């Protein structure tokens, strides 16, 4: 009898808890995200490390930073090709594109009411340059000065038409220089060791954007609230919560109403919500490119460094089949520059599978040992696993007689051999640093990614010259032509085989306006609700 009474007590406690949680989840969890709409909850798989714009260079940092820190220029909703005014109301370049002069608006104020001046821009940019962070390379070869309070001049050692695109990067968000200096910030040459403002900036907003920091947490959630002193059109939401959630959690959260927007759902997850009348799916194309490379250094492989091997890979890959793996909405990338940016090749320029040519190339190679294909095994983007892509590549090449051995490794270790240039073949991706074709010159011989594929300048001086020419070209039509030639030549040589760009999806509640994918920021929170 007593046992059963105890059981009754336990049952009563559980029932009470259930009733309590029933009330809670019914009254506060789901509806909070979907009724009043003063709060917007955004699900994102965090790669957040800091709220300090000068040190931030991750995707989540960009989303957060775009809402908190203004930049000189930015992009219109959904566009990634033409920078538009933001803090700078206008700009002009000199004839050689070595000097850009920006005229600042006179009504921009920081969240504490302090007016934003050219001194703040100079401080912010020099701080990025000297802090030696992930985004410091943006200021390589650039110097910044302020002839007067409302004018900023950016000078470049070489002609550089990418400057307007570069300064849209959130790393170059403008901070309140006096406030940051008061809290340990410096733009001095030794800023990498003497700047101590990060801790302050992880708790306090020093920007002029429409939102300010309420709480910043790199592991759970980061909350920003409307900036009461914002100089532009007021923020659409009183509060935005960026919630750290895996793609799997986002799928569950968006269906349960816990979040309003899911940013990381892969194509394979979409069928689960396509028929949900409460949700809208906005699809775009990601600027991330997946590519394959064959090491061009004979020291690494006497086989992969031959033109015959590159041809076998180029003609042996089933590009349409790879798109099936990448999922609906993905697209073959015809060159190294993704389709959303200026300078991209047209779809008709893309490589096409030709089994006869591939088999002929394999025959030319003769009797060879299997080649190792390395890739990160614990990493996926937009639901696309590197392992799945690598297996398909292996199967494709086997069909034309090329034996590939898969060599997966955790990303932290796989990166080592990739960066050291010791992989025979590698399967990797490139995310844009800034939306300009100049960012993709890293694939040229002797450049950052080219060297990872063992591709030195001496092996193709013409291509090196073409890349150098592309870097300093200033006329738009001329740039387009040079970048086209650069990519077509790259495709012809075939050290790199550009594969595809995944689909980019933003899933939002039907009542959320303006939740569209941005190739630059992932999503621009400041446009949502407007």
């Amino acid at each position, binding site marked *: 009898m007593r046992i059963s009474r105890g059981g009754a007590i336990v049952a009563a406690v559980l029932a009470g808890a259930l009733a309590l*949680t029933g009330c809670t989840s019914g009254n506060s969890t789901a509806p909070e995200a979907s009724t009043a709409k003063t709060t917007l909850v955004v699900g994102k798989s965090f790669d957040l490390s800091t709220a300090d714009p000068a040190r931030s260079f991750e995707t989540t940092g960009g989303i957060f930073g775009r809402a908190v820190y203004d930049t000189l220029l930015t992009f219109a909703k959904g566009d990634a090709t033409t920078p538009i005014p933001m803090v700078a109301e206008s700009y002009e370049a000199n004839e050689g594109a070595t000097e850009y002069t920006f005229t600042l608006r006179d009504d921009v104020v920081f969240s504490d009411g302090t007016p934003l001046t050219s001194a703040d821009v100079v401080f912010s940019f020099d701080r990025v340059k000297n802090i030696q962070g992930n985004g410091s390379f943006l200021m390589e070869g650039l110097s910044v000065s302020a002839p007067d309070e409302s004018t900023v001049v950016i000078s470049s050692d070489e002609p550089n038409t990418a400057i307007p695109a570069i300064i849209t990067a959130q790393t170059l968000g403008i901070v309140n220089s006096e406030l940051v200096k008061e809290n340990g910030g410096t733009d001095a040459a030794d800023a990498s060791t003497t700047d101590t403002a990060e801790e302050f900036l992880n708790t306090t907003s020093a920007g002029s954007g429409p939102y300010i920091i309420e709480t910043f947490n790199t592991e759970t959630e980061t909350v920003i609230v409307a900036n009461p002193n914002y100089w532009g059109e007021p923020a659409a939401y009183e509060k935005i919560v960026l919630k750290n959630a895996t793609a*799997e959690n986002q799928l569950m959260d968006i269906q349960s109403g*816990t979040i309003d927007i899911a940013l990381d759902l892969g194509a394979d997850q979409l069928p689960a919500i396509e028929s949900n009348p409460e949700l809208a799916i906005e699809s775009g194309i990601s600027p991330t490119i997946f590519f394959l490379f064959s090491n061009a250094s004979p020291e690494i492989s006497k086989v992969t460094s031959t033109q015959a091997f590159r041809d076998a890979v180029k003609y042996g890959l089933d590009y349409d089949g790879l798109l099936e793996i990448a999922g609906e909405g993905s697209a073959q990338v015809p060159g190294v520059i993704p389709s959303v940016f200026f300078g991209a090749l047209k779809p008709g320029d893309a490589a096409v599978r030709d089994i006869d040519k591939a088999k002929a190339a394999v025959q030319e190679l003769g009797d060879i040992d299997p080649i190792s294909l390395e890739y990160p095994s614990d990493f996926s983007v937009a639901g696309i696993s590197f392992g799945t892509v690598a297996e398909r590549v292996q199967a494709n090449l086997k069909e034309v007689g090329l034996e590939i051995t898969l060599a997966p490794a955790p990303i932290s270790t796989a990166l080592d051999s990739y960066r050291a240039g010791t992989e025979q073949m590698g399967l990797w991706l490139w995310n844009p640093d800034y939306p300009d074709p100049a960012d993709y010159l890293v694939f040229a011989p002797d450049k950052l990614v080219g060297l990872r594929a063992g591709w030195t300048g001496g092996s193709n001086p013409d291509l090196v010259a073409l890349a150098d020419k592309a870097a300093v070209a200033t006329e738009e039509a001329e740039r387009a032509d040079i970048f086209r030639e650069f990519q077509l030549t790259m495709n012809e040589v075939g050290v790199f085989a550009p594969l595809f760009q995944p689909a980019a999806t933003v899933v939002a509640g039907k009542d959320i306006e303006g939740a569209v994918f941005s190739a630059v920021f992932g999503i621009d929170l400041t446009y949502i609700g407007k």
Partner: protein
Amino acid sequence: MLFRFILSRLGSAAILAVGIILVSFVLTALLPGDAATSRLGERAAGNPEIVAAVRARYGLDQPLYVQFFIYLGNLLRGDLGTSIRTQKPVLSDLAQFGPASAELAIVATIVAVIVGVGLGIVASLRANGLVDQALRVVSLGGVSIPIFWLALIAVYVFSTLNRVFPSSGRLNPGQTPPSQVTGMYTLDSLLAGDLTLFASAISHLILPALVLSAPMIGLLLRFTRSSMLEVLGNEYVRAAEAKGLPRHTVILRHVLRGALVPVITVLGTAFASLLAGTVLVEQIFGWPGIGAYAFRSASNLDLPAIVGVTLFVAIVYITVNLIVDFLYGIIDPRIRRA
């Protein structure tokens, strides 16, 4: 006697801790990969000056044995180093994530003890009957159903299809956590007198805790049943019954007490593994606990965090074992006297 016992256990625990740190250091160092560049972007990783600055910042430019002794020195001052990934002191990370896992593990254990031991008693009293057969299936199911599968099904049924419980997190999005006293949101919100926050915290806690308790329920059910059956056959039980003691007094005071020693051994080990190994459940429920922290630290070769977590887990195991030893003595005076 007790003091000497505690002192000798603490002494061996300290030696064990140093050994664990040494092994963690060596094993992490043996892994291929570069901790300094793993968190750097592609461009920065290609810049030797930036890489050198990162190495110097985290002491990675020193030989491993120097790093080890510096770490030990700092540890004596209560400094577990700074996480390369979160860039915060490891101690503050552990203070943030440890209580989250502890809260989950404690509630799961309470549920498991109530349900598992309770059902184990019922099964032993109805041995080989229909109820016992049914509970055997429950026990087997609890032990053998993969926890990640159970978690996914639970979320689908109770969060996606029916919005009974929230699907992830510890609080509703945007809710400010209570001031940290224990780090367990349910307790802290009660201490703060904030019932709305408490309701939110417990609604987020129930589903992952129930899922986490499932294997433990299965385990405790089986152990309690077999241990009870063993004790039920003893002569002193028959003597108690012959004296005319009520059945429930015999069961709860004499049989259960005698049967608890092996159950507590299992419970202690299971609790420690729960606390240290909730990674799958934490991942599925978006629960920011020590398991998820350990997983992300290991993925990023974050040496200070890896060693910190290892040390944390070791301390948990050692503490739980100590508690189990003391509980033996309380339950069975013969052990205390021995």
